[in-house]
């Protein structure tokens, strides 16, 4: 058991899975000698060599396209996109092939691969380095989309993603990379994909979120609870696809109120789907509209304005109070 930050925890998962399974390979831009621009792949090249830790030429579609081929050929590639904003270059291969080969071949061909990349804002980076666009992946049938919120679950979810028989898009909230440390057991542990977690129990309101937004949301919930004597339940989705609607619906069926916090632009963002699930299955339990705390439908601003644009604890707290007050 060691105290690790998220970068170290993901790195641990990569080391252990590569050790455990000789078919796991890591590929991407600068993942080898440079150990990744965030150092997530530190030590892998030294340990596993150039054949399994591949510094690729600069071409995202090719990184994913060749990963698909590797997976068809019996490997388990873990590909890295350097930043979220460049991952879109791989959408045609993901949508066109990774997500479809199982269906196309009626189960005869599978694509066990992981595509991992840092995503979201908050690190004062250049344009295209701060996007949150989960639905571009989560809306594609045949892709799993997983988003950890801390070192320990990042490690456990990545282990599951690597072992999963299907393509998993693993989005790493880069604002959390070095934000805090957690105890991470040495022994590999795995968390099921497609399952949410209740990270704080409560009965007055359900706060639903994931990734980097979890921590500011928790902070807001604790603050509001302290101030008002309420008990807010907090659900960490962990997977956006397949989505664990049940956990959310069960919680809101008890609390009657909900707030969803997302970093992405508002329209057609993940929160809309959560609200739709609640509408489907818990409408008569809702005592207030489900509040959305969200990015705006604007082009992601450069970092000079990002703090003003990314939802923060104060905005979440106001949404919580507003929803609690709704009669």
């Amino acid at each position, binding site marked *: 058991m060691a105290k690790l930050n998220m970068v170290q925890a993901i790195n641990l998962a990569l080391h252990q899975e590569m050790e455990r399974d000789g078919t796991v390979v890591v590929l991407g831009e600068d993942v080898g000698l440079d150990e990744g621009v965030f150092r997530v792949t530190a030590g892998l090249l030294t340990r596993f060599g150039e054949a399994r830790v591949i510094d690729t030429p600069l071409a995202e579609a090719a990184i994913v396209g060749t990963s698909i081929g*590797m997976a068809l050929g019996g490997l388990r590639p873990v590909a890295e996109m350097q930043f979220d904003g460049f991952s879109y270059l791989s959408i045609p291969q993901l949508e066109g092939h990774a997500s479809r080969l199982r269906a196309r071949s009626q189960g005869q061909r599978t694509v066990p691969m992981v595509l991992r990349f840092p995503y979201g804002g908050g690190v004062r980076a250049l344009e295209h380095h701060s996007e949150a666009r989960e639905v571009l992946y989560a809306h594609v049938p045949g892709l799993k989309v997983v988003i950890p919120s801390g070192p320990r679950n990042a490690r456990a979810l990545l282990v599951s993603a690597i072992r999963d028989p299907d393509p998993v898009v693993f989005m790493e909230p880069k604002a959390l990379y070095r934000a805090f440390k957690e105890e991470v057991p040495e022994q590999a542990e795995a968390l099921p994909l497609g399952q949410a977690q209740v990270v704080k129990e409560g009965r007055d309101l359900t706060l639903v979120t994931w990734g980097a937004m979890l921590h500011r949301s928790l902070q807001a919930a604790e603050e509001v609870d302290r101030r008002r004597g309420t008990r807010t339940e907090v659900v960490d989705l962990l997977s956006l696809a397949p989505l664990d609607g049940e956990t959310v619906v069960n919680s809101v069926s008890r609390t009657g109120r909900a707030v969803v916090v997302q970093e992405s632009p508002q329209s057609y963002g993940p929160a809309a789907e959560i609200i739709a699930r609640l509408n489907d299955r818990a409408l008569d339990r809702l005592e207030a509209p489900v509040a959305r705390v969200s990015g705006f439908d604007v082009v992601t601003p450069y970092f000079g304005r990002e703090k003003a644009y990314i939802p923060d604890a104060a905005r979440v707290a106001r949404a919580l109070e507003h929803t609690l007050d709704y009669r």
Partner: protein
Amino acid sequence: MPLSDLASFQVQRLQVLDQDGKLDQSLEPDLTRAQKLALYRAMLLAREGDQKAIKLQRQGRIGTFGPSTGQEAASTAPAFAMTERDWFVGAFRELGGWLARGMPLENFLWFHNGWEEGSVFPSLGRTLPVNIIVGSQTLHAVGLAYAMKLRGEQDSAVVAFFGDGATSQGDFHEALNFASVWQAPVVFICQNNQWAISLPVGKQTHSRTLAQKAIAYDMPGIQVDGNDALAMFRATQEALARAKAGGGPTLIEAVTYRLMMHTTSDDPTKYRTEAEVQEWWQRDPLKRFRLYLGAQGLLDEAGHAALEAEVKAEVEAAVARFEARRDFKPDAPFDHVFGTPHPELEGQRKTFLRELAQAGGPEARHG
């Protein structure tokens, strides 16, 4: 140094059998008589199957497809140069190659009648399903080749097919670049059939040959007469041998021609002349190979008639099997989203099946 020559490059062209079936013995590949006959038979089966499929489409018995008549040598001969340990990565105009790899003709018909089941057959082995997104499969081929290399499968290489149009796609470029950087065991075969739907190859690219695109990657590249089965066999065999020996990838430009429409929805008279098509009928790969077999004393008129009858019967039998099959499970798409079940998806399956039952069962909503 001021203004100096840095490097120079050549592009070559290979032909073994000319348009009239005349052989260049010095280049003849080493094939047994049985192999030569089998290769011809495979091309004939592809031709007959293709022509039959056009008829079926015209009768509304299958949907749209892209005929390959005229291009049989370009995909069939390479399949003969491959072993079962090699991967066959096609696009959508490699009927000859697929049949040679063991795909039953009825599968092609199921596929083109809108059933994923067409992609599955007992001897699937190392043959990938049809790939429709032009050029995208070249990257899969490179990844497969990398996997073969990493796994130490020195008897395995990958052959990837694509059209002249595919050379314009970024994926093609990225695939050739990755393959050459990795020195991956891949053979890229471009079926340059002169057209990408209505665009002639001269408007697809400004380069004189497609083979010279290999120079961008310091990769061996060669132009081959794609209607010459022996040249295609030889070029593929050499490239595969080099790939397996660690010599890296090769680009083969197979110069051929699409004698039919782009797909059965296409009207080629809008964009090309009948004279051009007639000219290419003169270069028909089957005609040429038949002349060669005749000259070698392997197939006389009577033998050919018998073979033709046999192949036609085989096609009809496949069509019968195609028509007979009815067991297309309506909710199969739910079975193949993920390898692991998820309650949300199973819930949707229930909704789907309930709605279907209310509509009167699968037949009511048959495509």
